[in-house]
């Protein structure tokens, strides 16, 4: 007689189902714990309010506005997204996931959840920023392109660096060493795009926007093979 738990017909449900399962787990966990969401929200709202008070009645130059918006998005990403893999090791669930899932499914499930989360943060933080500072976006399509590219790039880069350092002993030091070269070029390109979108100058805006899209694609593409190497150790 077979055991009551003898597995049956669902074998080979495939990559998409596995990625969807990891995504759903991340979503449920975040909605129920709200740890990343709340810290990102607290940081974003307090920063926007502080900037609006500091620059009261003083119009922000486009490059400064782009820099501030970029910095806010980077900090929101660091607060909310960087712990995606680290939390698995800290709470001791890493082994459970390693035994049940293929590395690519884990990587894509978590990364896509972070992309979705970061796009949500991007829209919410930008709306708050524009509302409180009274800034006008002169080129909305360029602004949307830069915001999309920057948010996806951030999600890809921060998730990748989190995955790489999660199992390391000197996690904090390693995170800085890996994140800095990943994030610095990104913020420079994003400022160039946002600056033009806010109406300061005309040169380099669209190339910066497309550069961010390229960075986003690259950061998503290099993750899976790197992650597969380090996941089971």
């Amino acid at each position, binding site marked *: 007689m077979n*055991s*009551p*738990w*003898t*597995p*049956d*017909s*669902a*074998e*080979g*449900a*495939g990559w998409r*189902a*596995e990625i*969807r*399962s*990891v995504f759903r*787990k991340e979503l*449920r*966990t975040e909605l*129920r*714990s709200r740890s990343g969401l709340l810290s990102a929200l607290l940081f974003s709202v307090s920063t926007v309010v502080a900037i609006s008070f500091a620059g009261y009645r003083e119009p922000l130059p486009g490059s400064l506005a782009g820099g501030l918006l970029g910095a806010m998005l980077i900090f929101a990403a660091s607060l909310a997204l960087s712990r995606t893999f680290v939390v698995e090791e800290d*709470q*001791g*669930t890493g*082994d*459970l*996931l*390693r*035994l*049940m*899932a*293929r590395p690519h*499914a884990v990587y894509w499930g978590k990364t896509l959840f972070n992309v979705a989360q970061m796009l949500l943060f991007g829209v919410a933080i930008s709306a708050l920023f524009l509302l409180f500072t009274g800034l006008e976006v002169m080129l909305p399509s360029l602004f949307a392109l830069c915001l999309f590219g920057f948010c996806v790039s951030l999600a890809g880069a921060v998730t990748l660096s989190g995955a790489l350092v999660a199992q390391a002993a000197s996690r904090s030091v390693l995170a800085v060493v890996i994140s800095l070269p990943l994030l610095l070029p990104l913020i420079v390109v994003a400022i160039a795009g946002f600056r033009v979108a806010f109406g300061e100058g005309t040169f380099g805006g669209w190339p910066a926007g497309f550069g961010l899209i390229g960075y986003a694609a690259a950061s998503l593409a290099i993750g899976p093979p790197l992650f597969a190497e380090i996941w*089971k*150790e």
Partner: protein
Amino acid sequence: MIAARRLGRRFGARWIFRGVEFELRKGDALALVGANGSGKSTLLRTLAGLLRPSEGEVTLPDGDARRTLGYGSVESQLYPHLTAAEHLQLGGDLRGIAPNIEALLAEVGLQSAADRFTGQFSTGMRARLKLALAIQAAPPILFLDEPGAGLDAGGRALVARLAVAQRERGVLILATNDPEERRLANLELALDA
């Protein structure tokens, strides 16, 4: 079904174990015994593929490790914000098998706790759910690390029942120092501290 050849694992310069050799056939149950710090859990993790060996090799049966290996450990944890049923659903989805939630929860005596978050579980309830996850795919090879830790008499009887079922299905390897659990095995491997 599973064999270890000159298996060794070190952390830095310190060897945790070295020169481990064995071969197990269907129906075998091997108890890894030894003092605290002798490397029982590390050996179990290495055999299960959670750690790479520093030397030697492990031969496992063909097939996808997600379905051929089961692993339950006192050290591994559950997601505190997921329910027991959601854990088994996740396990089924990721392994590409039917989750069999009701049957598994009934088997480990957690049917009334299906919709409770595991963060609210007692140590014994968590141990029972970890056992359910370990046997979910009916794996031919099952690794259990101190399976009776935190379990009451009913839980220990469950472990004994699962051990018998596992030996009918394949191989059981357990790390333990509990005399009762040692009796579940027909073979022993003693590790030096």
